[in-house]
């Protein structure tokens, strides 16, 4: 980012390639139309460009980019006067291949998405940023404008509510039991 602020165009390309897929994923989660997600990501990079002189090089870029993106997304839904929601069909469209496991994943995702809508906004926001956008808790704290401990408390309360609301599900696809990969964004991300 420091190189980009000083006018290095190649640095902007690197920033785009690193963050555009993550931002598109974040936008696509709640938008039906790909073109609208593209438009919001485009707006995010335009804002990033205009605000580049405000960036503090001692800070991380990821929470800064996500702050802009989340503000634009929130404003988008305010303008449209509707709450973000997603249909099962739209979920399925995001799956690369919906086989038997794909269908189970989509169903699990749909159930969780429905239950998460009932969480208080501050708890839902923290869980989404951490789990679905891959931000670490200090980064989430920066995006929402709260302390790290406050963010962790919100996540904890959200987890408890989610667990109570979801109950037991014997049909949930199994994961392999083993050590952590240590990879911060393993799903084809940065």
């Amino acid at each position, binding site marked *: 980012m420091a190189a980009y602020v000083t006018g290095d165009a190649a640095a902007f390309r690197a920033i785009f390639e690193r963050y555009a897929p993550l931002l598109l994923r974040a936008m696509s989660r709640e938008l039906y139309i790909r073109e609208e997600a593209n438009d919001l990501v485009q707006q995010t990079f335009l804002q990033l460009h205009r605000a580049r*002189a405000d960036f503090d090089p001692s800070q991380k870029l990821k929470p800064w980019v996500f702050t802009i993106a989340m503000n634009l997304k929130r404003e988008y839904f305010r303008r449209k006067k509707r709450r973000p929601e997603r249909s099962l069909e739209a979920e399925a469209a*995001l799956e690369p291949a919906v086989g038997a496991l794909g269908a189970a994943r989509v169903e699990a995702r749909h159930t969780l998405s429905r239950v998460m809508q009932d969480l208080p906004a501050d708890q839902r926001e923290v869980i989404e940023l951490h789990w679905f956008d891959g931000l670490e808790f200090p980064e989430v704290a920066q995006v929402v404008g709260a302390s790290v401990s406050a963010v962790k408390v919100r996540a904890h309360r959200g987890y408890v509510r989610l667990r109570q609301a979801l109950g037991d599900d014997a049909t949930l696809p199994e994961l392999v039991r083993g050590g952590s990969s*240590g990879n*911060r964004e*393993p799903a084809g991300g940065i």
Partner: protein
Amino acid sequence: MDCAEIRSGFVAGRVPAGPGVDEHLKECPHCHELFERGAQLGRRLALSVLPTVEAGDLFARVDQELSREVGLRARLRAVPTRTRATLLAGVIGLNLLGVQLFMHRRDDFGEYSPALFWLVAALLIGALVFGVQRLLHGANAPLRVAERDGAFAISLLALPGLLALIAPLGAAHGDIEDAALAWASSGNCFVFGAVAVVPFLVLAWLFERRDRVPFVALASAGALSGIGANLLLHLHCGSEHLGHLLLGHASIGLAWALALGLCGRLSRAS
């Protein structure tokens, strides 16, 4: 091991396990929730993480958009927020200086408490400086701050009216003002104040980074121009008539907020 690594483990398709995980779970109650009942919550959350989406030709579009970022407005938008805020508040400062040096000043300064006068001025200046910074942060403001923008805009709109009600600064024990004259002169004050802050609004528009300015930001800009106008009138007009203060002074911010909101709506509709 930390919370991010626990999350990454789940997302990678495995339930994290091992001494490092056990150690972390002893200290971290919220990660502990993920592992309850066969780690169902962790698994559910992991299954709900969408794959990243390829950007396709989006870079070309963004690049094209950025190539249009030339000219005076593009340069002004790119100025750091602290400098933009100083310049924007400085416009009101210059207006105040102009009123002090070249225009009719109220001649009743000695007739009421200077402490009260400066307290009102300090509140208006504080609200202006703080509000301008907040307005110019735009989409960079943390979500919690941006969420309260509506309440903040309403506070800014209400401030001059509240000050008029609580501390109507005129001659505290002076002659009884002619009510009819006070009502009539409120129009002059309104026009003077509303016109005087036009440079502030023009500069605020030049500095605005968002292409689709939210209604609350337009309302805040209107409210801030109203606060600037009330500062000018605070030096210029010695009326303590409540009707005059509300109609001629405090309503300027509301009028500008409504006008800007209407302009924003019309531009979105077109």
